[in-house]
Each structure stands twice: as structure tokens, then as C-alpha cells.
């Protein structure tokens, strides 16, 4: 075989591979770096193809031409390589149009230099042909620009290589092999080129072509064995990066092999580079307790929280082991799903559940058939049925016939049509007790609007119902009283318009219905003449806020009669404000008529009494005046005014005088008695001093007693008030009467007069004597008019015995009592007990 064939065949072969790969890669150009890889391969293909043509040409000029052509590919390769490296290592954003342009400025210049080399020989200085067997080879010495180009190219290649090597170190195992092959594949030609250029190996020909073969093979391997540019990584990428759940792949020593964007966000690492290759512990330095907990745990499913306070989020953590091809544990997969929302919902549900559980109202949930699915503790508390006991049963089991059947039916109708129903039930507890509840039942719908459950919220209103009933009964009771009262009962508002009138009131005003009276004014009730007074009375009551007044008014009834009514008016208050009037009125016509009759008879009586008084006064005067004449002259006669009298004449005068005195006394007593009997004796009421009274009564009598040789004493109790109130004139008369009697009926001994104070409300006038006394039988009768104790002295002292009876009557008129204690032969004590009168204010 010819040398040429040996060289050319591999070259053709690898060129074909390059071409095929280029085409294949272009087909899959969605992958990161696929496009640039395709171009790279294309360039290599160009280079290879041109080199083949260079090799087989024999002419130096043609050879040179094809050499230049190879350099088209040669100058592009570093740039392409770098671009590919950038794209493949995820720096696609670096690769902008302007940068690509910049990158290829140099190659462009080099190309120009190469194609104008004849002019300046900057690239190649010399060129010559030489043969090795049948191979025609070219040998050139390199010019300045060659080295510039070489430097530039090697820099780019280095850059690309570095990128890829760095990535290699970080990338998961599955990609590394791929990268290594690519690296090797691409480095090979350059290695060869370098050997050739620097004459590193004593090789005649350019090794580069073989390197191309290697390249091609390497590519193929990377492609088909390691599935370079396979769609699956793309899809997987998309899936993994696009996943909401955070995914972290850990190797056996807890280093992060891979993690997706979501994981980065969760761990708050989105700013930085993917922490691939770092220790998990380092990345999760913020949560050492998590790292600890799951350090060696192969499999787990837990809920964890990350973050604090507002930023706290919940995650469902799933750890699963990863197994390699040989079923060995190569690492772990960590999935973190954000369940914060779920957790919040759960919490909310928990709160609501708690609310339902601890609600002070009973809550019952039934399904659409009405069977109980849930009851809260309050329900159990109220009814006595436990949850287990009522589960699946219908709430109808509680119902009683106290609740009208209509209520249940209406309720079902309402709620099954999707509306809320409110109403009252009377239900029975487990222990048989009845209770009332106010229920609010509503349907629960699912998202599609279909009713799935009914919820009933029920409040125990038994107490309230009971109170209502009592109130109702009470109201009926009172209403009956008011409605049936014969008195007029009515109410008005604050302006005086009727708000209510009971049947009696309605009747008297001529209305038959309560409605007729509303709007009428109270002043309409009375006669026009009395309206002014009525209005004034109630205005005054309203202004002075007097709670109760009584007044009387005339009225004209519906049938024209004139009646009088007396009404009690009460103010209806709301706090401090007058809201209206409440009136209880009565027909007092009869009473008024009686009063009128009474007044007439009183007036008549007064008139009669006045007439009587006048008569008595007249009689008194008519009797006393002539008496005065008789007594006067008799006295004058007796004391010698008309000249001396001889014995018979004196005797006559004495007789006249005596009889006249007696007559005078009789007249006095008769007139007194007449006054008392006619009830026209009016007691005077003055302030007087008891001391003065005593003194006035005794001063006259003292002499009389002394004349009879009796001891006469008087005393006054110091406790007695200094001033008393009453008819002192009469009291004096009484006292004089008693003292007179005492003196009269005492032959020897003493007479004692005293005024005493037995207690705070009474006082006593007392006359004690050592006279003949009064026999027991006569104790009461001596106070009767015209009666005297029958004895010698009285016979001597002829009197018609009016004195004591008049005294007794007068004393009794004053509200007092007269008492006699007496013993025949020892003496008597007459005691007059009188109430202490208060001076009217």
C-alpha cells in the first residue's frame, strides 16, 4: 500500500465522521453547546478535507493553496472551541454577537495575512516540497504572524480547556466521561499540531490527520456511548429545572452532585453559582440540626420548617437512596416540597374545628339525607346524646309535637332549595326533658355548587321561651284586669293624644273600638269650660315632674249626660324624660252629688246651728239681763244703798238675793248644757300658762275655803310644760267647779289642787279633799246630769247637779277623762286626764 493511502484513508474516514457528526449535532442543536459543537465539527471537517487535498496535490502552489485553505479551519477552531466550552458549561450569556465578532477579529486578520503571505511572508517565510516515498510533503518555516496566531490560538484553546476542566470537576459523574472524551477528542489534533509545529517528534508528516481520526472516534464514542446530545438530558434538564419541588442529588459522601433551581431558591442560594461539588453540610450551614438529623439516614419522609417568623415555610422532605448499575448505594436524592400553603390551610381548619368544638351553640352537620355526620360537644351537653349515639341518625329523633309540623316541612323546603332557614324547635333531651332552641340551618355546597351537607347552629332558648311565656301570661292577666275594670284606664303620649283606652273608657267616650280613640286628645274628654283648668293641671304636672296627681273634672258623655270624673294621673317616665301619661279615672258623679248634698246639709246644719247659737245668745241675753236687774237691785237693797233696812226687810232682801243667785246659776248651767247638747259648744284653742290657769281658778276659791276653816293648797308639777294649748276658759270653769264641790262637801280638813305631768303626752288637773266622800254606788251616776249623790249636804246646797255632767262632757270633748276616787268619810279625789294638744302649725 502506498504511504499516501495510509495517510489519506484515516483522514477521509475521520472527515466523514466529522461531517456526519456535524450534521447529527445540528439536528440536536437545542442542547446547550450543540450548535457551537456542530460548527466546531464542521470546521474540523473543513480542516481535514482541505488537508487531504493538500496531501494529494503534488504541486507546491496547489499544496500551498490547500494549506491556506486548511488554515481557514485552523484559525476558526480555537474560537469555536471556546464558544462551545462556554455554551456547554452554561455560560451561554457570554456568547453575544459582539463578542463572537471580537473573538474572530484575530482569526480574520490571520486569514488575510495568510492569503497575502506572498506579499510580506509574515506567516510563512519559506516553503518547499519534499518527498517521502510517494508522499509529497510540504515544509515551511514560520513567520512572525504565525507565532502570533499560534499564541492567540493556544490562549483560546487553553481558556476553553480550563472551562471544561473546571466544569468537569463539578459535574456529576455521568457527564464527566462525556467531557473527558470531548476534551481528548479536541485536544488530540492540537497535540499533534503542536508536535508537528515544534518538531517535537521525529515524524515526517503531520500527525494532525491521525489526531482527527482520534477526534472523530472520540466524538463518536462520546456521542453514542455516553449519549452526548441526547434529548433526554434536555428533557431531564427542563423537567428538573422547571420543577417546583427542590431536588438535590447527594453522593455517598454527602456532596451535592446536582441541585435544581427550586432547591437553590428554597435554600436561599439563588444568587450564587450552583453549589455543585460542595458538601451538603456547608451549604446547609444555617440549619445544622437538619444536617445532623439526616446525615446518615438513607430513607425518610418528614416535615421540616425553614426560616423564621414571617418567612417561615414548611416543606415535606423526602430522602431516597440512589443505586448505581451494580445496585450499590451511590448517593441520595433529596426532594423538598413546599407545603406551607397546605400547612396554613391545615392550621386554619384546625382553628375552625376548635371554634366549632368549643362553640357555645350546638352544631350539627348532616348529609343531604339528613343523617348526622357530626355534632359538637355543646350538642352532647345540651341533649345528653353522645356523638356515637347520634351518628348516622336523623335529627328528627329529637323532635316533639310541640313544634308544629309545618315548621319542619318548611325548613326542609327552604334548605333543600339552597337557602338558609331560621326558626324555633321544641326538642326532647335524652332524659326526656323538653327544651327550646333557635336554629339556623344552611346548606353546604361543594365547589360545583351542589349541596353536600347541611349545618345547623342551634342556640338554647328554653329559658328565654319560659320567660316569654310567663310574661305573656302575666300580660294576659293584667290585660284582663285593665280591660274588665269598671274604672276608666287610658294612656296618652306626651302631647296628650290617646295611645290606649280600656273598654270602660271607650264606652264612656262613646267609642266602640280602640282604634277610634287613637289620635283623639285628652282635653276632648272634658267640657269646654273645664279644658283650661285641665290643661293647666297637667302642664304643671309635666313641668314639675310630679309622679302622681289627683284632680276632678266635669265631662260630657257620649249620650249627653254630664258626669264628673276624678282621675289619678301618673307620669310615664323613661329615665328622666316624660314619655306619656297613664290615667285611672272614675265616675264620681254620684259621689259629687252626695258631696253636694252633704255640703247642703252641712250648710243647713251650720245655718241651723248658727241660728241656734244666735237663739241661745239671745236667750242668754234675755235671761241674764233681767237677772242682772234683780240681782243688782237686790244687792243694792241689801247693802243699804237705798237706806237702812230693818230685820224683816233685810231677810227679805237676803231671800231675794239667794234665790236670784240660785236662779243665775241655774240659768248658767242650763245655757251651758243647751250649748253642749246643741253641739254648738266650740272649744277655744289658745296658748295658756297652766300656772296662770291654776292661779286664776284658785284665787277666788281660796277665800271660800278659808272662810270654812279648811286648809287650801295647790301645787304644780315642774315637769309640766310652761305653755299648754287648749280652751283655758272652760278648763278654768271645770277646775272652779271641782274646787267648789270640794269645798262644799268638806266640813273640815283640806282641799288640795294640783296640776301634774304623768307622761309626755298628757297632763292632769286634780282636786283632792278630806270631805264626806262619795258612796261607791254613786261613783258613776254623779256624772250624769240632774243627778246628785243623795245626801244631806247636797240637800242643803240645792243645785240641779249640772256641774259635774257638764264637766265630764267638756272634758270628753277635749279628748280627756275624768276619774273619781272616793271613800265615804275619808275624802275624794277628782282627777282629770287630758291629752297635751299641739298647737297647730
Amino acid at each position, binding site marked *: 500500500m502506498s504511504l499516501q493511502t495510509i495517510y489519506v484513508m484515516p483522514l477521509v474516514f475521520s472527515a466523514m465522521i466529522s461531517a456526519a457528526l456535524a450534521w447529527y449535532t445540528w439536528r440536536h442543536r437545542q442542547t446547550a453547546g450543540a450548535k457551537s459543537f456542530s460548527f466546531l465539527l464542521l470546521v474540523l471537517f473543513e480542516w481535514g478535507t482541505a488537508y487531504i487535498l493538500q496531501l494529494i496535490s503534488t504541486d507546491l502552489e496547489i499544496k500551498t493553496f490547500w494549506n491556506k485553505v486548511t488554515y481557514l479551519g485552523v484559525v476558526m477552531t480555537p474560537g469555536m472551541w471556546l464558544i462551545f466550552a462556554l455554551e456547554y458549561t452554561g455560560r451561554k450569556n457570554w456568547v453575544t454577537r459582539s463578542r463572537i465578532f471580537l473573538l474572530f477579529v484575530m482569526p480574520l486578520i490571520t486569514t488575510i495575512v495568510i492569503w497575502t503571505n506572498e506579499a510580506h511572508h509574515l506567516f510563512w517565510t519559506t516553503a518547499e516540497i519534499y518527498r517521502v516515498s510517494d508522499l509529497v510533503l510540504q515544509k515551511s518555516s514560520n513567520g512572525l504572524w504565525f507565532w502570533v496566531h499560534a499564541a492567540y490560538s493556544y490562549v483560546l484553546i487553553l481558556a476553553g480547556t480550563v472551562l471544561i476542566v473546571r466544569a468537569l470537576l463539578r459535574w456529576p459523574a455521568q457527564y464527566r466521561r462525556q467531557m473527558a472524551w470531548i476534551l481528548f477528542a479536541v485536544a488530540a489534533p492540537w497535540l499533534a499540531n503542536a508536535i508537528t509545529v515544534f518538531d517535537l517528534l521525529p515524524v515526517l508528516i503531520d500527525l494532525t490527520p491521525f489526531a482527527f481520526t482520534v477526534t472523530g472516534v472520540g466524538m463518536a464514542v462520546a456521542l453514542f456511548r455516553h449519549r452526548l446530545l441526547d434529548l433526554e438530558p434536555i428533557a431531564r434538564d427542563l423537567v428538573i429545572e422547571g420543577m417546583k419541588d427542590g431536588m438535590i442529588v447527594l453522593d455517598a459522601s454527602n456532596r451535592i452532585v446536582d441541585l435544581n433551581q427550586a432547591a437553590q431558591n428554597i435554600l436561599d442560594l439563588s444568587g450564587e453559582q450552583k453549589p455543585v461539588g460542595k458538601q451538603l453540610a456547608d451549604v446547609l450551614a444555617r440549619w445544622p440540626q437538619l444536617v445532623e438529623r439526616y446525615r446518615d439516614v438513607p430513607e425518610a419522609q418528614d416535615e421540616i420548617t425553614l426560616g423564621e417568623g414571617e418567612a417561615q415555610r414548611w416543606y415535606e422532605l423526602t430522602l431516597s437512596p440512589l443505586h448505581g448499575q451494580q445496585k450499590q448505594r451511590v448517593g441520595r436524592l433529596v426532594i423538598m416540597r413546599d407545603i406551607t400553603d397546605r400547612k396554613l390551610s391545615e392550621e386554619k381548619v384546625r382553628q375552625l374545628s376548635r371554634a366549632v368544638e368549643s362553640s357555645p351553640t350546638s352544631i350539627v352537620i348532616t348529609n343531604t339525607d339528613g343523617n348526622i355526620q357530626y355534632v359538637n360537644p355543646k350538642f352532647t351537653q345540651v341533649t345528653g346524646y353522645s356523638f356515637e349515639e347520634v351518628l348516622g341518625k336523623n335529627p328528627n329523633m329529637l323532635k316533639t309535637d310541640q313544634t308544629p309540623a309545618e315548621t319542619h316541612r318548611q325548613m326542609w323546603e327552604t334548605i333543600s332549595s339552597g337557602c338558609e332557614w331560621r326558626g324555633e324547635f321544641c326538642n326532647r333531651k335524652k332524659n326526656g326533658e323538653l327544651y327550646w332552641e333557635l336554629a339556623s340551618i344552611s346548606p353546604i355546597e361543594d365547589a360545583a355548587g351542589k349541596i353536600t351537607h347541611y349545618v345547623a347552629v342551634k342556640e338554647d332558648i328554653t329559658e328565654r321561651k319560659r320567660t316569654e311565656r310567663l310574661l305573656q301570661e302575666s300580660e294576659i292577666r293584667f290585660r284582663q284586669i285593665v280591660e274588665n275594670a269598671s274604672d276608666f284606664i287610658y294612656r296618652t303620649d306626651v302631647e296628650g293624644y290617646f295611645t290606649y283606652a280600656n273598654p270602660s273608657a271607650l264606652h264612656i267616650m262613646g267609642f266602640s273600638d280602640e282604634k277610634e280613640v287613637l289620635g283623639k286628645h285628652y282635653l276632648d274628654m272634658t267640657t269646654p269650660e273645664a279644658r283650661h283648668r285641665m290643661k293647666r293641671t297637667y302642664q304643671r304636672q309635666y313641668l314639675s315632674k310630679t309622679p302622681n296627681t289627683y284632680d276632678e273634672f266635669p265631662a260630657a258623655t257620649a249620650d249627653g249626660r254630664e258626669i264628673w270624673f276624678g282621675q289619678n294621673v301618673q307620669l310615664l317616665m323613661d329615665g328622666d324624660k316624660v314619655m306619656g301619661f297613664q290615667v285611672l279615672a272614675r265616675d264620681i258623679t254620684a259621689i259629687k252629688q252626695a258631696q253636694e248634698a252633704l255640703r247642703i246639709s252641712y250648710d243647713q246644719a251650720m245655718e241651723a246651728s248658727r241660728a241656734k247659737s244666735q237663739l241661745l245668745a239671745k236667750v242668754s241675753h234675755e235671761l241674764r*239681763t*233681767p237677772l*242682772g*236687774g234683780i240681782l*243688782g237691785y237686790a*244687792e*243694792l237693797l241689801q247693802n243699804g244703798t237705798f237706806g237702812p233696812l230693818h230685820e224683816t226687810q233685810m231677810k227679805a232682801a237676803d231671800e231675794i238675793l239667794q234665790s236670784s243667785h240660785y236662779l243665775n246659776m241655774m240659768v248658767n248651767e242650763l245655757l251651758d248644757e243647751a250649748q253642749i247638747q246643741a253641739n254648738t259648744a*266650740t272649744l277655744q284653742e289658745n296658748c295658756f300658762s297652766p300656772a296662770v290657769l291654776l292661779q286664776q281658778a284658785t284665787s277666788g276659791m281660796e277665800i271660800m275655803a278659808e272662810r270654812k276653816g279648811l286648809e287650801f293648797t295647790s301645787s304644780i308639777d315642774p315637769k309640766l310644760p310652761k305653755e299648754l294649748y287648749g280652751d283655758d276658759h272652760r278648763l278654768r270653769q271645770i277646775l272652779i267647779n271641782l274646787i267648789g264641790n270640794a269645798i262644799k262637801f268638806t266640813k273640815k280638813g283640806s282641799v288640795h289642787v294640783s296640776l301634774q305631768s304623768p307622761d309626755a303626752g298628757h297632763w292632769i288637773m286634780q282636786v283632792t279633799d278630806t270631805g264626806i266622800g262619795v258612796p261607791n254606788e254613786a261613783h258613776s251616776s254623779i256624772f250624769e246630769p240632774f243627778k246628785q249623790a243623795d245626801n244631806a249636804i247636797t240637800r242643803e246646797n240645792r243645785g240641779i247637779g249640772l256641774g259635774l255632767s257638764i264637766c265630764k262632757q267638756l272634758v270628753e270633748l277635749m279628748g280627756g277623762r275624768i276619774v273619781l276616787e272616793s271613800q265615804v268619810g275619808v275624802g275624794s279625789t277628782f282627777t282629770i286626764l287630758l291629752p297635751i294638744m299641739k298647737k297647730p302649725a
Partner: protein
Amino acid sequence: MAKPLIIIIEDDPTLNEIFTITLTSDFETETYTEGETALARLAEVIPALVVLDLHLPGTPGREILSKIRADDRLANTRVILATADERQANLLYDRADMVLLKPISPGQLKDLAKRLCTDF
């Protein structure tokens, strides 16, 4: 010395007679049977004592008493009321110096008059 003057106002002539006889030894007396003339006289003289009957024709005794008491000139004049009317007597008790209920004892009257007029 002149005897003090007593004006007697009493409608009953018998009693007038008796009063005059009783008092004439110690006093000058003038009698009137009704009030107005007595008042006219009182305008001229200042008696030591007036004996006044309440039961008078024309102007009632009560009024005469008021008029007497209203007159400053008669401030020192004593008044004895003579009346059969007990009630009126009670009412006027404090306006007069003394009230005597009829029938009046001449002796009593004389004593009283003397006592009342001692300081005149």
C-alpha cells in the same frame, strides 16, 4: 279733787240704773244706751273707765271697743266689758281690762272700778 269719770254704755235701762247707783258715790258717771253717742262724748272727754256692754243696738259693742282702743287719747282709759255672751267675752278677753259676765254683782263692779281707777 274731782271724781274720776266713768262712761257706762249699756242698752238696758235697769242695769244702767243699777250701775249708776253703784258707782255714783265714788265716781262721776255718764250713761249711754248706744255706742255712737257714747263715742261722740268720748271725743270730748277722757274717762278713767268705760263700762261697755257688748250687746248694743246699732254699732256693736265690739266695734266700739275697737274704736276706743284705736284712740290714743284714751290709752289710759280702762275698759270693763259687760256681756251675757260668753263666747264674745272669750274673744275679746285681751282687748279689755276686765270682762264681767252678766249678771254683774254691783259690789264686784264697785270693787273692780275702784281698783282699776286707783292710778288714774
